[in-house]
């Protein structure tokens, strides 16, 4: 029987659940046309919870070790909460304008999905993993279809495709994961990660492992399981894509880390080559496919696939340094990628896809938005003094230390390939000429604040990475040694 002590490590997640219910109740009480405040309420609640994580002690095991509260889990919670708060803030205007009647549900689903994200990094039991993944994934599929027919600008045509692709892929990946887990459970007789680690190796267990990891790779969108990414990004509402492009990835990595490095830790040599394959394939395919894209959303989608490859390098290293730097990379990526998508939202709200030409002359239409976009793409490319540089550098350091020096050269060279298409964005922003009908942009305050927060994150973590790196390292240490 769970006791009250079991709930101590889960206090943040429970508060998040209560927040969701609070938003739901407030939504019921609000009359039509007055629901805009729900977005602010959600952002405020998430920001509050973010601050709460610094003051509550969420350590210890719950439910007989199925959940372990560690600094590792807490840091992931912070990343998810910060990302969620920015996502809610960035969505306020979009949701209010395009779906005035369906605002409460949007934020409710966002909060439920976030609950799955905050719970998962601490999970140490296979059943818990599956539950968290579904809690996270199903609301996302619903949100992807949010631009239904009541959108007048035609985005609705793509929304069904976006949502269906995401839903089918996520259902298929869950099926594959479950299939794999049934092998794992059958061969080991336990669902706890520690128990699986202790079980002897057998061919069927190996099949189970492969299937489980393949299913997880679907979730993070690694090659060859990435095909849903560009279509979903293009069709779904941009502020939601900002969130979709970072949140589930972060969580997926937490799950992959736990499964590869705890449950299957005896087989790292074999799994290493599998992960290596995913790393190389993701970086190569993501970067090469991004090159010819003419739509910025699709370009960023493929660039995201490549970024997944870089993050996976941290996993490949498998060391404390590698995991810590993976976490740092994820934190930086959340700020960077969300920022980039939110800038796109500020430029072409409500439209499915943003052609590169839409960015032409952005520096003139809105100098700060132009500068923000420049910094975001530089960070994605890994240029010094924005966070992306340190992130890439540290994962490179980790793989070098793990004896894969050639991966550093490979990764750095592919980063230069990526610079080609990132610079296309910078070129459009600073060298393109705005067409006559493109007038100066004014960004709504909520969206501007969300972009500003991302910008602060990118610049602060880039200029002064030390404290973030230290806490990520400490968190990684707690991953290996929960006590």
């Amino acid at each position, binding site marked *: 029987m769970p006791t009250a002590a079991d709930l101590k490590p889960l206090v943040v997640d429970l508060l998040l659940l209560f927040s969701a219910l609070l938003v739901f109740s407030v939504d019921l009480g609000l009359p039509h046309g007055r629901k805009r405040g729900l977005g602010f309420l959600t952002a405020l609640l998430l920001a509050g919870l973010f601050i709460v994580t610094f003051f509550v002690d969420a350590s210890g095991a719950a439910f007989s070790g199925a959940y372990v509260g560690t600094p590792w889990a807490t840091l992931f919670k912070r990343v998810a909460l910060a990302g969620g708060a920015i996502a809610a803030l960035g969505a306020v205007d979009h949701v209010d304008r395009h779906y005035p009647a369906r605002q409460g549900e949007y934020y409710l689903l966002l909060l439920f999905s976030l609950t799955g994200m905050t719970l998962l990094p601490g999970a140490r039991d296979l059943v818990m993993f599956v539950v968290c993944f579904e809690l996270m994934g199903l609301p996302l599929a619903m949100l992807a279809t949010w631009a239904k027919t009541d959108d007048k600008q035609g985005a609705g045509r793509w929304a069904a495709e976006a949502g269906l692709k995401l839903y089918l892929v996520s259902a298929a990946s869950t099926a594959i994961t479950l299939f794999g887990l049934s092998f794992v459970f059958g061969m080991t007789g336990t669902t706890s990660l520690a128990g699986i680690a202790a079980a002897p190796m057998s061919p069927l267990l190996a099949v189970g492992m492969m299937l489980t990891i393949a299913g997880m790779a679907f979730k993070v969108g690694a090659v060859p399981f990435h095909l849903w990414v560009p279509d979903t990004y293009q069709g779904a509402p941009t502020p939601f894509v900002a969130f979709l492009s970072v949140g589930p990835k972060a969580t997926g990595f937490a799950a992959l880390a736990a499964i590869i490095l705890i449950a299957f830790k005896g087989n790292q040599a074999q799994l290493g080559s599998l992960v290596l394959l995913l790393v190389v394939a993701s970086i190569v395919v993501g970067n090469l496919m991004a090159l010819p894209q003419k739509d910025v959303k699709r370009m960023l989608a493929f660039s995201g696939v490549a970024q997944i490859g870089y993050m996976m390098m941290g996993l490949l290293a498998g060391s404390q340094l590698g995991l810590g730097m993976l976490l740092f990379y994820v934190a930086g990526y959340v700020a960077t990628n969300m920022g980039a998508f939110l800038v796109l939202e500020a430029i072409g709200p409500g439209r499915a896809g943003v052609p590169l030409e839409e960015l032409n002359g952005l520096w003139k239409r809105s100098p700060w938005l132009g500068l923000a976009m420049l910094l975001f793409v530089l960070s994605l490319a890994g240029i010094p003094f924005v966070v992306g540089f340190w992130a890439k550098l540290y994962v490179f*350091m980790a793989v070098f230390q793990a004896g894969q*020096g050639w991966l550093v050269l490979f990764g*750095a060279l592919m*980063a*230069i390939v990526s*610079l080609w298409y990132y*610079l296309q964005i910078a*070129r459009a922003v600073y060298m393109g000429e705005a067409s006559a009908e493109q007038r100066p942009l004014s960004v709504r305050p909520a969206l501007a604040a969300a972009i500003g927060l991302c910008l602060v994150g990118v610049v602060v973590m880039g200029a002064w990475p*030390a404290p973030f790196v230290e806490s990520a*390292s400490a968190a990684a240490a707690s991953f290996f040694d929960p006590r």
Partner: protein
Amino acid sequence: MGSFFDTHLLSIIVAAPFVAAVLLLMVDDDARLTIRWISLVGSLVSLGGSIQLAAKYQLSRGGLQFAERYPLVPSFGIDLSLAADGWSVSLLLLTGIIITTGVLASWTVSHRGREFFILLLVLVAGVFGVFVSQDLFVFFLFYEIAVLPMYLLIGIWGSRGKVEARGPFAFVWKRFDIGGREYAAMKLTLMLLVGSAAILVVIFAMYFAAGGKTFDLGVLGAARYPREMQLWAFPLLWLGFGSLAGVFPFHTWSPDGHAAAPTAVSMLHAGVLMKLGAFGVIRVGMLLLPDGAAWWAPYVGGIAVINVLYGAVSAMSQKDLKYVIAYSSVSHMGVVMLGAATMTVDGWNGAVYQMFAHGMMTGLFFALVGLVYERAHTRWVPAMGGFAAKMPGVAAFFVLAGLSSLGLPGLAGFVAEFLVFVGAWQSKHWWWALPGIIGAWVTAVYVLRAAKMIFFGDGPAQEFHDLKDARRTEWGALWALGACLILFGSYPRLILDFIHLATNEYLPKLSSAMQLAQLP
């Protein structure tokens, strides 16, 4: 003047342009005069600091002076560690002079002037930083800062070079818009960053081989790396840094980039940035990996010889004025690499002195080319002629720079090339001196021919009706650089003492490696 200025002199030099750039962010876009004055003051502070550094640097003591150290990422042993040796002193002085004259020469930039000066100042802060970093990681950081703003500087403010599409591959020219500024900017950025990727791998290799505790150059330099590692690591550094120094065959970004860049950017890039590459090869490559350097020295020298000759011959066949000067830079940077490869005292002194002298000279060249282009609206040499009648000052300075370029005694270029050739003669490969001297001779041919075709002879033709001589601030830039060429050419000890001091300290580190190295 309290001691604060003395103890933080290097930070002030590095930070001044950066602070000026931040100040510019807050200035209104239309306040053109304010923008220029802030930029000028920022560069003057750095120049003044560099002069102060040269004055206060104790030649009798030598070594690293004015050291400062602030922890940056303690868990990985990254410190913002600054200190100056004799080489740094001379190269800081060069950078200070070039950025100040560069700002003066671009006084008339009005299109998006604020962003232009911001990027220019950020770039130069990176250059200053590289020359004084004593932490390999920070060295790399500053190096990147110095390279990256070029993309926007060339892409936005650049001009189109005139390139003839000819031969079986003419369609490639059209397809990629070769000669266009966006093509040049992209080519330059990508090629230089490929070099950075190679450098990064070696930095990690050295860091972990030395214990993985610190990136301090002194500590990394004291460590002995396995010979096998040095043999693969040195060529990566050579090509990585060398691509910025214009080492053949990785020089092709340089003519396109320099030709497309606006005046001040060409001045800075050819005058100072290419030196970063050569400085990196010597300071990091040769001093930290002596065994690898000694083994690879014949190749470094051999390629440098190709650079000298190929650059000179290419310059001779160019018709676009900026391409002429850009290829001459490739040729002259070959002299620097040749001096470095000799691994003799005279060779190294000559290499560093050539960085200094070539910086001044090519800075002056690009300032003049910018003036000519602005007034004539063309860079096509065959179309020009007789410009000296309308712009006598520009013509005089062009001839002065040209004479220094071909190595006329009494000008800075002569001292440098003479030292390098003496060094080459003393080295194991005495014959390196011959192609070097031939290169200097070819330089005389194309420089004098260009001067004749542009400034003398018949003309100027009708279409060049608004040719004017230099104006106020432009005179400042020309006189400053011209005076430096004469001053440091006739009294080289002013700088050579600093260079010689550092060379004498560093070269012995390589002597044992030189004895070990077998000739391939």
